[in-house]
């Protein structure tokens, strides 16, 4: 932490006031934790989820235990396709950077798993509900590993 200076003045309410200009910054070692195989999958061009071998229930985002029978889950590969529930054009870039605004964001129901992901869709036109999308893995080092993936529009659902 660092105090850069003190500003003396009069508050909006007309009272004398002192403003301390303080800087704090942190750098974290943030683990992917249980989701490590997901991020390794992203590097290899595949989206991964987990399922319970006992009851067959499957989850994205992945979870380590089945909440129903408490068994450990197993990782498997998703086909990488899904269907848009709703989409928007976002005019403010995400906090980690790496994406120029405006960009398209959609809530996507993923094939092969119960659940979905809210993620970036490539293109200019906001996709309608029912639009079929497929994951595309981007070249280069993204601002955040999750941004290595994005979705491309494949077409309308049958």
């Amino acid at each position: 932490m660092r105090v850069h200076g003190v500003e003396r003045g009069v508050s909006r309410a007309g009272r004398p006031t002192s403003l301390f200009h303080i800087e704090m910054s942190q750098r974290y070692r943030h683990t992917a934790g249980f989701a490590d195989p997901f991020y390794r999958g992203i590097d290899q061009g595949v989206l991964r989820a987990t399922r319970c071998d006992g009851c067959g229930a499957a989850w994205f985002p992945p979870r380590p235990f089945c909440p129903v029978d408490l068994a450990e889950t197993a990782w498997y590969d998703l086909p990488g396709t899904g269907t848009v529930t709703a989409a928007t054009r976002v005019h403010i870039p995400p906090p980690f950077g790496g994406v120029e605004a405006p960009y398209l964001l959609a809530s996507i129901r993923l094939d092969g798993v119960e659940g979905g992901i809210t993620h970036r869709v490539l293109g200019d036109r906001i996709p309608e509900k029912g639009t079929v999308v497929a994951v595309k893995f981007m070249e280069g080092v993204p601002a955040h590993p999750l941004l290595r993936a994005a979705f491309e529009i494949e077409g309308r659902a049958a």
Partner: protein
Amino acid sequence: MNGPTRRRDAGDRVFVVGVGMTPFAGFRDDATVRDMVVEAARSALIDAGAGAAAVDMGVAAYESDHFNRQMSLGHVLHEAVGLVGKPAVRVEGGGATGALAIRTAVMALGSGAARSVLVFGGEANGRSVDRSTASEILAMSADFEWETPVFGTFAAPYALMITEHMRRYGTTPEQFAAVAVKNRRMALDNPYAHKGMSITVDDVLASRPLSDPYRLLDASLLSDGAAAVLLATGDWAERHASTFGDRPPVAVLGTGSATDHPRLSDRPDDMFPHFAAKRRAAEQAYRSAGLDDPADEIDVAEVYDSFSGAELQAYEDLGLCPVGKGGPAAAEGRFDLGGQTPVNTSGGLLGRGSAVGATGIAQAVEIVAQLRGEAAGPRAVPDARIGITDTHAGVGALSVVNVFGRAA
């Protein structure tokens, strides 16, 4: 007390014996969050005619160490408002923090752990940090592992919900812009409001886009502010609160809380444009308050208008209008002054503003003022007897609905 509760008898009622708040502002350059909470708590105690020494317990409400720049703020505030030595608890529930603190106090009173509880909340959400830093911090209230990296702003998930609401029910941007116009107009009459404005639907539609279809004037304000309420049993109030007999007593008639999948994309398709947790919380709160027909029985409501469209979605999920009809109801003025149920007479988050830890408490302050007949000027709702507050965390991940009623 978790889950449905029986209708309260007069003997074990929880009364709101004092209320207080600071004005909400874009930046309080003359007050720390501690100063603001002390100011609000003092106002609530003076309003009750009670000293802190007689109070049994404190509940502190705040969300973010990043904004407030103080870890363990709860017991710092507890000492500052004069409760050192008494039991303390800090409550956090995102946007529902203040309302959850009130609910926690009601539970403490219901259990017999306390006969009086001072609930105080505050947040320095205003411009002590620049806009991009504020956005970064706020983005952390999405799921940091799976959402934060791709969301530019919290407008995005709200925009996804209202987009589906528009597709399914024909809701229009003009209809939710009407909410933004109404709440900013209400704020003009509230001296505690952050920023009242006299604007038109066209002004909203012409403001800068955030996340389609939402624009800048559809979005609520980030404020500095604090609020406090003193809750107590009737016995305690008669003994320690000297103003208790001076005006119509206001009781907490019911409270409800429920949760939903925090990530929007995990929610079932049929509920995608709806706040499922809000529906459950409202049902629970109404059941505990003995309300059978909320649209008819509720006279005034403070609703969580983080975005203009979220208010019209909330009309539906709170049972104030049929599902899918929130848009036309907003445009027709059903929730404006003189309508079926005036909503956000304080100005709401859009006009009064939002200092997260204080927001749900400030809503209760407004409802109590309406029920006591103390709300002044055009925003007064004549002869209001039952009022509710509604807040949620995230995009409806956790909801709290509290019901208040004039007891005489």
